[in-house]
């Protein structure tokens, strides 16, 4: 029997290998597409990396971009642990941003931390409510949560468009967006001179809390048992309905928080379509992180930097940005396949 330290290393390798291989494979396949488009893939990837990490400013933008991904991804990872397939992140995030905007514009003037906290709180509540609605439809009417969350995404995004056309819209701006929010509600900058905002720390905290909640609390234990074996959970007296509702509320709240941070820390206003892609990509991130809150962090960073780098790649070598979605989609398929092959061998 090998010494203990070596065994731990082997376990770590086994956990890390599938996502890393999936990412490499996705880059490889995508490279073929770049060649087909008549460009040099190595040059394209280099300019992508340069665009992502080329300066402190770029790194700050990438970190900001990864923040909503990490927050939403942690919630989705907890859901998936309990086999609750919440793919409603998009709508929950959008409504979180909407609620934060509404609170920031309508609350009585308050000093900075209080105004910001109230707006963030509004985002959490709205996201949780939207997820709770889907969970309620699931529990009361038996509509699978995949369809309930999915259809509510469309409704949620349309609510944002509707509100921006009406009450919350900026008159005469010509764009579907809200007026600039009062500065007291903005998230502070973390590093002067860059765009890096305090939301990054909130995401880090959420990752840590998610990790502890999943592995060190009775709540997390219930989620894991439910995911591993429904009969075992029933035998242990765990109520699937209560677990489903609570994990959905938690995950919706995190998505709503992500939306609020996006509004209060990046745009300083609500812009139509600001949530686009966040919710679905967060599912990919949760999977890429092996449904482990701690590993969701690097996965979120990967997606964040991928997206900020892609803009530079398009400018520098003319490779269109939708390539990023190809990399994301392929990574997801490969990770899912690897997870499927090794299913049943994972730690509960």
């Amino acid at each position: 029997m090998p010494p203990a330290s070596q065994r731990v290393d082997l376990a770590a390798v086994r956990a890390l290998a599938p996502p890393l291989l999936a990412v490499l494979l996705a880059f490889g396949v995508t490279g073929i597409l770049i060649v087909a488009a008549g460009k040099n893939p190595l040059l394209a990837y280099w300019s992508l990396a340069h665009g992502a990490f080329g300066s402190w400013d770029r790194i700050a933008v990438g970190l900001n971009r990864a923040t909503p991904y990490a927050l939403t991804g942690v919630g989705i990872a907890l859901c998936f642990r309990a086999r609750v397939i919440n793919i409603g992140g998009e709508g929950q995030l959008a409504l979180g941003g909407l609620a934060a905007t509404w609170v920031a514009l309508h609350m009585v003037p308050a000093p900075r931390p209080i105004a910001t906290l109230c707006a963030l709180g509004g985002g959490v509540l709205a996201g949780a409510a939207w997820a709770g609605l889907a969970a309620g439809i699931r529990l009361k009417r038996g509509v699978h949560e995949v369809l309930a969350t999915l259809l509510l995404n469309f409704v949620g995004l349309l609510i944002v468009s509707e509100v921006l056309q009406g009450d919350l819209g900026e008159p005469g701006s010509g764009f579907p967006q809200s007026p600039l929010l009062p500065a007291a509600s903005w998230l502070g900058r973390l590093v002067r001179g860059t765009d890096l905002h305090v939301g990054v720390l909130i995401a880090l905290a959420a990752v840590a809390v998610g990790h502890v909640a999943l592995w060190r609390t009775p709540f997390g234990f219930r989620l894991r048992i439910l995911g591993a074996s429904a009969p075992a959970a029933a035998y242990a007296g765990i109520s699937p309905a209560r677990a489903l509702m609570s994990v959905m509320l938690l995950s919706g709240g995190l998505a709503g928080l992500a939306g609020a941070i996006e509004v209060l820390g990046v745009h300083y206003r609500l812009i139509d379509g600001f949530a686009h892609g966040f919710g679905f990509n967060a599912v990919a991130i949760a999977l890429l992180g092996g449904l482990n809150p701690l590993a969701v962090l690097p996965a979120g960073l990967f997606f964040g930097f991928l997206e900020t780098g892609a803009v530079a790649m398009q400018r520098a070598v003319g490779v269109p940005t939708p390539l990023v979605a190809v990399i994301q989609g392929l990574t997801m398929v490969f990770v899912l396949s690897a997870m499927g092959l090794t299913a049943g061998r994972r730690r509960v």
Partner: protein
Amino acid sequence: MTEFLAATIRIATPLVFTALGGILSERAGVFAVGLEGMMLAGAFAGVITAFLSGSMLAGVAASVLGGAAMAALAAVATTRFRAEQMVTGLAVNILAVGLTSFLLRGLLGHGEAPTIRVSPLAAMPVPGLASLPVLGPVLFSQPVLTYVALAAAVAIYVFLVRTRPGLTLRAVGENPAAAFAGGADPLRVRMLAVTCGGALAGVGGAVLSLQQVGTFTDAMTNGRGYLALAAIIVGRWMPFGTLLACLLFGAADALQLRVQGLRLPVSSYVIQMTPYVVSLAMLAGFGRTAQLPAAIGTAFARDRPSS
């Protein structure tokens, strides 16, 4: 009124193809969340091929291949590699949006989105029948793919209920271990079912790009694949029930166009919500009694028949 009914059928046509494809997949035990991506791939392949070759027939054939190719990827992942079916479907959808938008710019447009234009398939009145009152303009003055959609519903029904391969497909969806014991190869059946389903969804996409708008825009399916998915559940996994559900969604959409013309004091966004709210309401109404194929969502492994 006849105009409204004709619009209902027109709008329902892409949903019908796509939902029929989804039935094949789900009846074989594989969730069809990837319909949206297969549809988009079909819409893209169809209109690009028609644009480049000048032949609508080649376009439709390419849409079959495009949808099938996207589906084949999902099929291999969910059967051979036992990947989680719903999230794989989601991945296919993300991939399809990226791939079509990238190919449009990278291969055809030298970095920018090029202008793609084909003249959409025109209405093809059926001689004689088209002059019937009401029924004529509603049913028999439609473009060609709409007739094919109705025929496909009949064909899928006959296939599923009256043929041996159809029975095998359903058996695999209900109890793959038993089907395996009976001599079928569940993995092969599922791969075929998902791929053929993707081909149908591809034609659904072609209806959008070749019959309705004559061009391709990024993510142009815009959630229709998900509506088709809801239609399957409302239609209880049977072709004619699903056809009816698609017509109902089509009617909700057609009504939306109507209401928009009336300048009511409701904004267009609220009206755009109707198809989604209607399908949620219908699922909530039917959901509890819905009988899913028993083995849907579960992976089948020869050495581990219990999983």
